[in-house]
């Protein structure tokens, strides 16, 4: 059973005259880390928005786990098994870490528990506990999410995306603004998550990309410039010119 978890075919959207994402096609493999790289403004976050349902594509198709789901809204993508994190941390700053996670795990409860007190949501509670342990946030469970350090908030962002037991995680620059040590730990975590679930990643840190990616897609000015295994992509002269040339 090795059908890809995500197929993107000729996806495109334009804002005004600008083609933010233009005819992008790629496949994300199951139990792999697929990384999208490209300079600022290449259309990476827009691509994520098209896949996760935040925006409807003007052209192209998205197939998730064998299910055609082009333009499906976010809640449906979640139901199909997609979890996403945000480039700009988007938590519930006035709720505790634990409450944040429980909010994200609650959807796993059967609909019959919708109107029962939250403390009865055993499944959600257990999963929130497990996430606390996995992301080493148990100590901080009672703190307000808004009081966490930047690195901890970025980790929360990933934990929230993973909370509802997704098949594929869309991570939008999870290491943004992290210290070097934290970045390294997060890289290892993402590598493990890639094996467990599947990961589609946007990342700027090229070293990290080369270290954990199974497959790399390079975007430039809304279009796909190249794709392939990390080493092949790095060696590609077009990529060198468009991307590494700037850096």
């Amino acid at each position: 059973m090795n059908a890809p978890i995500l197929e993107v075919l000729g996806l495109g959207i334009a804002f005004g005259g600008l083609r933010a994402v233009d005819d992008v096609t790629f496949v994300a493999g199951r139990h792999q880390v697929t990384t999208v790289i490209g300079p600022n403004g290449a259309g990476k976050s827009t691509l994520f928005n098209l896949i996760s349902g935040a925006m409807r594509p003007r052209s192209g198709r998205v197939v998730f786990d064998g299910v055609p789901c082009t333009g499906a809204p976010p809640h449906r993508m979640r139901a199909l098994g997609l979890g996403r994190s945000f480039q700009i941390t988007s938590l519930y700053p006035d709720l505790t870490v634990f409450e944040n996670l429980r909010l994200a795990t609650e959807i796993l409860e059967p609909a019959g528990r919708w109107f029962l007190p939250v403390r009865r949501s055993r499944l959600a509670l257990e999963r929130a506990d497990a996430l606390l342990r996995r992301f080493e946030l148990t100590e901080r469970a009672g703190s307000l999410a808004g009081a966490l350090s930047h690195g901890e908030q970025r980790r929360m962002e990933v934990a929230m995306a993973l909370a509802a037991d997704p098949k594929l995680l869309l991570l939008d620059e999870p290491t943004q603004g992290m210290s070097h040590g934290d970045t390294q730990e997060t890289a290892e975590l993402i590598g493990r998550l890639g094996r467990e679930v599947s990961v589609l990643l946007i990342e700027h840190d090229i070293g990290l990309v080369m270290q954990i990616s199974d497959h790399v897609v390079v975007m430039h000015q809304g279009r796909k410039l190249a794709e392939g295994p990390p080493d092949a992509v790095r060696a590609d002269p077009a990529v060198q010119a468009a991307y590494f040339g700037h850096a």
Partner: protein
Amino acid sequence: MHSHVDAGPAPAGAAGPRRLDRLGLAMRASHLLFGFLALTCLIFAALAWRTGDVFYLRLATEALIFAGLALSVDILLGYTGLLSLGQALYFGLGAYASAVTLKAGYPVSGALGAAFGLSLAASLVGGLIVSRVRGVYFALITFGLAQVAAKAVYNTRELGASDGLIGVPVMPIHLGVATVSSDSPVGFFLFTLAFMAVLYGAVAYLLDTPFGRVLIALKANERRVPYLGYRPERARLAAYVLAAIVAALSGALYPMLRGFVSPELLSFTTSGNAVITVVTGGAGTLVGAFYGSLILTALRSVVGSWTSHHLIVIGLLFMAVVVLFPKGLAGFARSWVEDRFARTGSL
């Protein structure tokens, strides 16, 4: 990964695993404050009964009824983050439904049933429009809907037009263990208090379920909600319907108390008062609606004894609360109670 406890400054006070559930803690603090309020009301009722007072009992009963309207505003404003400037629409709907039903000779349960059914149906229709917008647009649409409805009632002869409906009969209310008459000052005050306690309890219960938590999530950060798996429009619709029912059930008691209904009940003044009540009492606390209503009613009757322009005082007080104490009165008190709870570790 290493432990990251040292990665940021520890929050002050009683943080730690015991404070996992801040929302639950806050709700328990609200319950305590509600208990205190109910107790005060009982003492007041006993005193009034001893002295044979009617005027203040009736006034307090009315304050409790309008607290129900404020409670419905709080579901939207304090928990879902939606400011309704037209909640009197459903309060008035409930009042008119109740008046018409009672005048037709049906019992109190029929009046409450009519208010419930009508508000459910009307809010589902209104909610289809309203749930698709938020923020400023939500405020202006709810405002407009109520204005249109008020105008419609004002021009409907069958509903008494600008005079409203008078002559709503006095009704016995059968409560299983006892029967109170709607014209008994103490009896109806206690009935209203119990009724409001049930409404408060029901709303508090619902907000403590996964459903309620989604509403809270909508207020705190709507952007994330769809990715948690929920549809914001559905959640807004549910909150709107719930609030409408609470407002209508409260409104249904009004004609039992006063014996009449008038288009004034649907007016912007009524909606605006409910907002003032909630914000002054403390939005997002549920219990603030009750404290706000009782205190503002008391203030109105005190200031009203010197001048008919008590709205200046109320308006200035309201502005001061918005600028200086955005948590409101009960919000202030509740934080204090919460801290006590957290410190004693009674979670």
